[in-house]
């Protein structure tokens, strides 16, 4: 019931207020002034996500042009303060209002930015504001940009804004007619396609320097008519059609291209392109560009030029022509090009083969295949083999297969390996051929796992020809399947040397496709019958089950240590980790000195395993304790960063002074502190970070990223919570004697109610992470009337806004329905226009407090609020900053007679709850970034017998 009621009241206020408010400053539905809205917004920046971003930007933009202006006015020269938060706000606004769905607020932001630009004197800030207006401005803002063109520092920003903003064509053309800033204006003409500027640009060319010429020539290329053509043609010729400072050649080329595409000027442009194409003195890239223009203008009529180019001795000319013809190269054109290439000679044929390959020109399969076989120069044949592999098809296949075992075997094998099509039958057939061909095709059979060739491969194992036999063995792995295991094992048990290894691999390959348990069954059957146990160790490693690992450990302990260890290192799952540690343990009487290899193998398996952090940490610390070489140790020290917990930090920190391990340790320390789920703090953590920072600092000369690590650690140290000392607050003996009680001692939230989600107990403090307006406030469980309330608070970020509500009901705005003693980091530069009654310690809207100068962020402040009847006293850091009478302050008129604007309160608001007899004490936050601790109270009403 109560909730609904207060909702109704809030709604009513929202409806009435805009009408009744006599306040010059606008207020929103929650009766926040513009200043407060902006301050609340700033306190949440940079916005942690899109939702906060949209809310804050909407609220600030809704304060109107004056709000945005006051925000922009908060910028200070970089040497006088920190602008980042305001920059986040302003750039956020400029971006936010360019979203179509927020277009209604765009004008507010534009007008606000312009108003601030008019008074801003710092050039850097002014440039920044111009860049924002460039982003969200419209043609209406052009005069602001034009006015900045007179300023040497700002004119570049202004000109870019005129280019960036839509609808400025007329303004730019007027500037062109005036003739200042020619380089920049020519660029603007180009970007905005201002055709009407052509006569001016042509005129400007007469007395332009190189830089101006470059801009003008480029602009003429973009907008010029045929009037510009002779000018650019002449300029390009003068510079020999080379790239140079005036950009004449490229401009000429681009103009030609443009005019060639326009039917009205095409003829003229084509004529010039032809003459450029014919000019023997131009570089290949110019010749190619001329051809590109001809292709665009003439289409297939440009083909004869290509045919001529194919005869050109310059490989660049030939290939440029082929590339440019691509859009027109249908099957018929391709066939004609092949024919012309034959006429032109082997260079051209090679290029065309490469071109067909790159384009996968399947219609030319026959032509390509014909160059694989028959009389060819080597270069041509190799290009053809390459192209045939990509193009594919039956003819390509048989041509390629015919090259196996020849001088071009390697090229043919490469093409067949990636041959896109069914090559199996053709390759199998080849196995029936002579020894040379057999030896050549077997690697392909193996690589592409052609099972159809299996029996033939087994047969060729016994070939008299050593090359063929060896190739058959090598191919075996590819062609065998599970049913071949027994047959392979029979062979393997008789084999020696290299053949034994090859057959082991073949057995592995044969079984690879069946489940591990079945693999183990097949292997263990053979294992039980043979004396040569080690033959099957690689298979056990592949199986990798606990049984298989146990079998390997058995071998390790019983005479086959080397082979078993080698196999254990190949096991690819975490089942083997404990066994590797067992082996790594060098204690006398155990298994020898394989520590490094075993641990090095174990590490990636542990990292990848689904173990808890604590289990992983134990492995890491055990590994380090086993004293491996420093290189392996360092890997484990770095791995501590994967398990960010205090014990990992302690262990890593031990190696910060170790010359061989300090970098690994520093990396781990940094990672652990950064990633720890529970914020780490205290002197020991700080000491470790400082040392780690020193380590990185010493590496800065050799490692560019070390500088980042130094900065990152600096930030971490600054934010480090002061844990480590006692987190529990206690009453002083005096306080005890006087009758104070603890409301919050750092151990529990027992005396509090309300928003316990955003006011949380962390490290002995109440940490506030409430986003503005979410979830409500924190309240004492009891009500108080007269009292002395003591607490400590710490600002963690700039501009924090909170408050202590007193004598307030729950879930209402304490500033009006009770009293709010302001908590505000009013030193933040963007609170410049703050009202006195909004300063820290004020009875909000009623009695201004004396301005406190806060120590730097992250320092604890003490505060006492004494409330006795109408008499309020606030003491901060030992200094009384407010001592006044609330009834006198408003002459008894906490509300106006008619409920409208109140001429007696300093904020002209009504404060119906000002004279409440009692109520809760609350923290009423506007955002994250503040901590409280050591909260005590002395209930003064008790002594008067008014105990409730």
């Amino acid at each position, binding site marked *: 019931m109560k909730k609904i009621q207060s909702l109704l009241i809030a709604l009513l206020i929202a409806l009435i207020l805009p009408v009744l408010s006599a306040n010059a400053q606008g207020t929103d539905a929650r009766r926040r002034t513009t200043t407060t809205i902006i301050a609340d917004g700033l306190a949440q920046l940079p916005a*942690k996500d899109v939702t906060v971003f949209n809310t804050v930007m909407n609220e600030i933009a809704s304060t109107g042009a004056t709000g945005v202006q006051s925000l922009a006015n908060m910028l200070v020269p970089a040497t006088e303060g920190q602008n980042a938060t305001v920059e*986040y706000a302003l750039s956020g606004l400029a971006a936010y209002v360019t*979203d179509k769905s927020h277009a209604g607020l765009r004008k507010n932001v534009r007008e606000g930015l312009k108003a601030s630009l008019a008074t801003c004197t710092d050039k850097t800030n002014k440039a920044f504001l111009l860049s924002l207006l460039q982003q969200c401005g419209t043609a209406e803002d052009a005069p602001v940009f034009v006015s900045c063109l007179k300023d040497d520092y700002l004119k570049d920003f202004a*000109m870019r804004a005129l280019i960036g903003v839509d609808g400025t064509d007329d303004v730019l053309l007027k500037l062109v007619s005036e003739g200042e800033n020619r380089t920049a204006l020519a660029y603007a003409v180009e970007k905005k396609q201002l055709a009407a500027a052509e006569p001016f640009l042509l005129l400007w060319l007469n007395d332009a320097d190189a830089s101006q010429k470059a801009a003008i020539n480029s602009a003429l290329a973009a907008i010029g008519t045929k009037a510009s053509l002779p000018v650019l043609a002449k300029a390009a010729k003068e510079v020999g059609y080379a790239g140079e400072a005036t950009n004449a050649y490229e401009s000429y080329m681009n103009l030609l291209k443009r005019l060639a595409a326009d039917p009205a000027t095409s003829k003229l442009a084509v004529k010039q392109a032809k003459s450029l194409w014919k000019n023997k003195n131009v570089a290949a890239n110019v010749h190619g560009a001329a051809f590109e223009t001809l292709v665009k203008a003439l289409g297939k009529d440009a083909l004869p030029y290509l045919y001529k180019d194919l005869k050109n001795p310059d490989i*660049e000319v030939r290939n440029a022509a082929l590339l440019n013809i691509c859009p027109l190269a249908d099957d018929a054109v391709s066939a004609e090009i092949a024919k012309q290439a034959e006429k032109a000679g082997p260079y051209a044929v090679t290029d065309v083969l490469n071109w067909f390959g790159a384009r996968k020109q399947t219609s030319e399969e026959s032509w390509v295949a014909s160059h694989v076989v028959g009389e060819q120069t080597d270069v041509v044949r*190799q290009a053809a083999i390459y192209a045939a592999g990509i193009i594919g098809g039956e003819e390509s296949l048989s041509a390629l297969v015919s090259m196996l075992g020849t001088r071009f075997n390697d090229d043919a094998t490469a093409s067949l390996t990636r*041959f896109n099509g069914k090559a199996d039958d053709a390759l199998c057939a080849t196995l029936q051929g002579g020894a040379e061909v057999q030896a050549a095709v077997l690697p392909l059979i193996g690589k592409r796992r052609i099972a159809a060739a299996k029996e033939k491969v087994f047969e060729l194992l016994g070939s008299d020809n050593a090359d063929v036999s060896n190739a058959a063995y090598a191919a075996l792995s590819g062609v065998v399947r599970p049913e071949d295991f027994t047959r392979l094992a029979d062979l393997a048990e008789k084999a020696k040397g290299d053949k034994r290894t090859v057959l082991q691999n073949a057995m592995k390959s044969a079984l690879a*496709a069946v489940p591990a348990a079945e693999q183990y069954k097949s292997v263990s059957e053979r294992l039980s019958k043979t004396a040569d146990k080690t033959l099957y160790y690689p298979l056990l490693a592949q199986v990798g089950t606990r049984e298989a690992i146990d079998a390997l450990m058995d071998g390790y302990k019983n005479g086959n240590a080397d082979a078993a260890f080698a196999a254990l290192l190949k096991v690819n799952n975490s089942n083997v980790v404990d066994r590797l540690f067992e082996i790594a343990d060098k204690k006398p009487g155990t298994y020898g000195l394989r520590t490094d290899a075993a641990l090095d193998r174990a590490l990636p398996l542990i990292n990848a395993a689904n173990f808890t952090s604590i289990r992983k940490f134990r492995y890491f610390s055990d590994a380090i304790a086993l004293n491996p070489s420093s290189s392996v140790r360092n890997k484990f020290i770095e791995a501590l960063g994967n398990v960010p917990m205090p014990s990992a930090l302690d262990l890593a920190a031990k190696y910060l002074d170790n010359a061989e391990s300090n970098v690994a340790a520093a990396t781990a320390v940094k990672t652990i502190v950064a990633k720890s789920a529970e914020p780490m703090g205290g002197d020991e953590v700080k000491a470790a970070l400082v040392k780690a920072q020193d380590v990185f600092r010493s590496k800065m000369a050799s490692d560019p990223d070390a500088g980042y690590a130094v900065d990152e650690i600096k930030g971490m140290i600054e934010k480090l919570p002061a844990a480590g000392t006692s987190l529990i607050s206690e009453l002083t003996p005096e306080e005890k004697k006087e009758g104070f009680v603890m409301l919050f001692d750092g151990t529990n939230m027992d005396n509090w109610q309300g928003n316990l989600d955003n006011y949380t107990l962390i490290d002995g403090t109440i940490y506030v992470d409430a986003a503005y307006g979410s979830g409500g406030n924190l309240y004492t469980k009891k009500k108080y009337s007269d009292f002395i309330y003591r607490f400590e608070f710490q600002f963690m970020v700039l501009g924090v806004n909170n408050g202590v509500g007193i004598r307030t009901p729950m879930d209402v705005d304490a500033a009006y329905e009770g009293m709010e003693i302001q908590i505000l980091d009013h030193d933040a530069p963007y609170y410049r226009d703050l009202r006195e009654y909004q300063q820290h310690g004020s009875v909000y809207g009623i009695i201004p407090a004396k301005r406190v100068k806060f120590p730097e962020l992250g320092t604890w402040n003490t505060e006492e609020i004494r409330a006795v009847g109408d008499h309020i006293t606030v003491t901060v850091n030992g200094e009384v900053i407010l001592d006044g009478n609330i009834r006198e302050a408003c002459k008894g008129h906490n509300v106006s007679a008619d409920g409208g604007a109140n001429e007696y309160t300093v904020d002209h608001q009504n404060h119906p709850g000002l004279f409440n007899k009692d109520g809760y004490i609350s923290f009423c936050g506007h955002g994250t970034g503040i901590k409280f601790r050591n909260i005590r109270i002395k209930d003064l009403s008790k002594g008067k017998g008014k105990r409730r």
Partner: protein
Amino acid sequence: MKRRDFLKTMGAASLFTIVPSRVLGGPKHVAPSDQLTKGIIGVGGIGRSSYHFTSDERCRLVAVCDVDKKHLQQALDMAKQRFNADLTSYHDFRDLIHDPNVDVVHIATPPHWHALMSVEAAKAGKDIWCEKPMTRTIGEGKRVMEAVKQNNRIFRLNTWFRFTDTFYGLGTTVEPLKKLVDSGMLGWPLKVTVSGATGFTWKFFWVGKENLQPEPVPAELDYDMWLGPAPFKPYNVHRTHQTFRGYWDYDGGGLGDMGQHYLDPVQYILGKDNTSPIKVEVDAPQQHPDAIGIWRKITYTYEDGCQIILEGEGFESGDNVPYIEGPKGKVYKGFQCTIPDVMNKLAELPDPAPQNTDFINCIKTRQKFALNEVNGFRSATIVNMAVCALRLNRTLRFDPEKLQFIGDDAANALIDQPMRSPWRL
């Protein structure tokens, strides 16, 4: 005859008589006439690193350029020491580009210069090696593509995972991934997740600083030329060498700088080299207008429903997120695949189409390099799309044909940003 023309015609002749076209560079001895030359613009961290500061018989380093006198001197000393070479040194990149002794222009400056220099080199008829990211904006990328095409240049964008090297957390090259995707075994559409969990790091320490104080410009640095087309802002050391990555005016932070490394192979794997996503969504804290910050998640959606998800600060899904996920299968970090015996199944399929990965050979045979101005533009575009969405803090829709955002003028203004006078593109 100019050195370069001599090289080309003779190169072609020798091609015919001695050297097979596809194995150019194979012979141990290269005649000086057949040797290319290069000049490096920007000899800071990247330009002087061992991968780029090379000089060999196939391509000899002859010139360097920098606007920082210290960097320039260090490069000259290094060349003397390593190659016993006396390089020509330049302050103005245009002089290096127009030097007739330079065949290949190698661009290793901060990204805000890449487009201008690439276009200038293309106009001068030079072939180009450009470091990633290709360009700072979509519009600049388009312009590079046009200039390279018009002048028929060979352009290499330098990142390489689409054709070589282990691809971060996958533990293999991208080739088996490409084969797997092309085979259809995973089904369609696919979702790719690029995150710490799949083995990638977005280098969130590459962030800028707010509240920079003006500082005196060091005597060795031509700051105006360093800024070039970027808006003038008072000098602070953090804007420049090494840390420039943290400022929108010059680069795009971890996303801008690593994005093309990570996403170019994804476009290749998904077969998206000639198109772009139609939508980009961002989940991030608000970005500062100057200093780049962090982000949590970026989601790209293609017209066919394929998605690429970038997981950033504090958003890693943990070890259980697949790198590629399709309706029929998933691939996790280390190429762990839900399809049994997948490698053997892949072996039965043809290898992907060949890629031209020898830059020098590409120049000599005038064939496009594997990662060139066209597919490089598309992978730069995908990164730059997200940059626009981050800066505006909203979802953007994109037309991959027109290369414009749909219904968002402010986003389109970020595609084509006017340059500081007198620079133009």
